[in-house]
């Protein structure tokens, strides 16, 4: 990132660089995931997280460690709480009056549910991409620069916008129409615009809530390639309904099953080839869910 005012937390890609250059999109057969686990550092750690919506428990005793600079996928049937967990990480659940969160959830060394944590400041460190592309009814430029403006980030905005759009693989398509409305783009372009918007302020973690579920296969594959590249610099946590997608793009996979339980969490390759839990195997092979 060309953003010099915000110190980058992701300066040590270690030896992942080399590994990431291999073609991960072709899926499990490459078998690169297993060897990546050696040098990983935890960036998001949940300890016994429970979430209730009024009386209904949405998440039960979630404990997991999300490694830095990796793609972690969360899969599971509808209503299993995977999106809820995602929204716990940047405290978007605070917006819902009925939601109540218990337990500890660390971003780096800090429990984000500590009393002294300002959720707005937290969200500035954690980018989010939503299921439905939701660009603002502003120009493409202003969409990408939104985070820079509201977070009062200085520097050369033009350069940051260009860089973010390039990383989101959108620059070549929109460089001549930066003044036009973001809503005039196609769905896939809008979603890449939203990704550019999320990475412009240089967050540490990017949360993606089914980012490709509203897109056609071509746009989906572009987003997947993009996620793969983002993992070089960012930690990506992605919720998906599409198991092939999880298998293609993620290093780690968490399987949530009905009732808000995290049933199994581990290397993607292992989850998809040889899961410990019988229910996970049934879910992945399509026997239920």
């Amino acid at each position, binding site marked *: 990132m060309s953003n010099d005012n915000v110190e980058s937390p992701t300066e040590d890609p270690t030896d992942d660089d080399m590994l990431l250059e291999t073609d991960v999109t072709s899926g499990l057969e490459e078998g690169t995931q297993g060897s990546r686990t050696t040098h990983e550092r935890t960036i998001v750690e949940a300890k016994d997280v429970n979430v209730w919506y009024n009386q209904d428990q949405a998440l039960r005793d979630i404990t997991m460690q999300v490694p830095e600079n990796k793609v972690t996928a969360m899969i599971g049937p509808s209503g299993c709480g995977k999106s809820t967990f995602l929204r716990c990480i940047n405290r978007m659940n605070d917006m819902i009056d009925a939601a109540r969160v218990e337990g500890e959830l660390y971003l780096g060394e800090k429990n984000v549910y500590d009393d002294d944590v300002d959720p707005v400041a937290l969200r500035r460190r954690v980018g989010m991409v939503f299921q439905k592309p939701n660009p*603002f009814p502003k120009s493409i430029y202003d969409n990408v620069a939104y985070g820079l403006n*509201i977070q009062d980030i200085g520097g050369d905005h033009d350069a940051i916008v260009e860089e973010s759009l390039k990383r989101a693989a959108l620059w070549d398509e929109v460089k001549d129409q930066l003044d036009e409305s973001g809503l005039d783009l196609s769905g896939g372009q809008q979603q890449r615009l939203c990704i550019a918007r999320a990475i412009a*302020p240089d967050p540490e973690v990017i949360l993606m809530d089914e980012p490709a579920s509203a897109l056609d296969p071509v746009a989906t594959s572009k987003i997947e390639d993009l996620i793969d590249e983002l993992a070089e610099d960012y930690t990506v946590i992605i919720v998906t309904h599409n198991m092939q997608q999880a298998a293609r793009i993620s290093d780690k996979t968490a399987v949530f099953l009905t009732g808000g339980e995290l049933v199994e969490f581990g290397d993607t390759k292992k989850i998809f080839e040889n899961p410990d839990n019988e229910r996970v195997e049934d879910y992945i092979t399509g026997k239920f869910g």
Partner: protein
Amino acid sequence: MATEDRRSYADGFGQVSRTVGIIFRYLLLAATLFGIAVLAILLVYVANDAIQPLTADAGWHLTFFLTLVLPSLATGGYLAWSNVDGLKLGAMTLGLFVVGLLFSGGVAIIFLEVLPPLVWFAYVIAFAVPVAVTVGLQQRSRQIPFVSRFALATLAFYLSLFGFPGIVGSYAELPQLIPSVATLILFAPIVPLDWIQLTLTVGVFAATPVALYASAISDRRTGLIAGAAALATVAASAVVGPAVVGVGPIPSVVLASVAVLPTAAYVCGTAVTREQARIGLVLPVVIVAGALAGEVLVDTLGYAGPQSWVDWQFLTSDHSGTAANAGLYPAIAGSILLMLTVAALSFPIGVGAALYLEEYAPDNRYTRFIDVNISNLAGVPSVVYGLLGLGLFVTRLGQSTGTILVGGATLALLILPIVIISSREAIRSVPSEMRQASYGMGATRWQTMKNVVLPRAFPGILTGTILALGRAIGETAPLIMIGAPNVLYSFPSELSSKVSAMPLQVYSWASYFATNDFYEKAVPAGVVVLVTVLLAMNSIAIVLRNRYQRET
């Protein structure tokens, strides 16, 4: 495919009865048309009484039929058949010009009667200076903390508008040490001519959107040229108007800024961007040319026109004991001034309350109690609001009865619930995904509101407020309750002067002054003017709403 089991359906599929459905459909249609038809008939009657088209010579009718009606219908029909977009463009151009004319009338009245151009000019400059200071401070927002910026901006506004020590000092009876910018201009030894003042203020206000529009269509340079051309047009009108048409320089400048410029910008803009529809501009040309030709012809042929009661004399005279000399001028101006006061009071309070209730208020029983009560207040009869205004502003606060301030405040209370409800609707219609996106970027509630919610909801808020103002302009009962005079013989010139309004004057013509002439002619004429002003206001709301719907 078990085709052998299927019947051949050679006899068709049978029939399903729809009789009840069809009857229901036409009953609904009748219900829809009933109200509209009754109102239309009433308006035709009123318009007939007011304009009296049948008093004109047959030759007059024939002339205008041949020069205006027939060519317009032919052009319109041809466009409707061949190029509907063109027809829309032509109608829009004509509508824009007519509404612009009506509004320029209102603005011209204000500059001629209420607000001397010099005072307006002085205060516009006195506002522009601190606004420029504030914008400059905002540019350096990273170096100067918010509190200092706010204090400096406030100081700039205070110094520019009031000087030092200003109004605070005058309470403490301190002498004025530094005059305000407004005072400096008001008492400057040399000031530009009044039409130059208006060109520099109203003209610039009108030319700026033209420049922005042109630069949005084309590029920056075109925008600058268009803006300069627009300003030059306004300035030229001040010279051309008095010399050629015989309109004074002030109305000329206003006319050019409010009616001519927007229409010209629209025509030029659409001619460039919508080539297919360009042909539609023939329609307004045919109509205007037809009207002019007809006018010249009836003059030369000596045909008498209708003895309309809605004429220049009616629009520009004060009330008089005899119907023939009576006019609506003070009431028109009174209504305009009341509307300005109502808008200035109800818009910030109503939108503020709506924003609080939608964005900040917690969902508890107190909020719900307020919700229910706002809905109920929208239905309280207007005469009750009149009583409230009388009790609150006149008795408690000691204002004198029937002034613009008291009338405006009372009407503002009356429409406040409507403004709040419609603004809340507009705010609620901002998709929650937009808010989520903004919060997800780490925006505070205030930033989300300022950058996402308000820009998106603003057209809806404006539409609702204008429609509510339309209700206020037609109110009579609250004005009677606060003791507004029935008729005025002179012009209300400041906030504390007595005011009458169009509906009140019409009402009194129909009751206290009910001679036959008043009852049968002046009243319908007043109604026609009132409804025209109302439609002009609502047309803005309609245009705004259409724009808004297109964007969503």
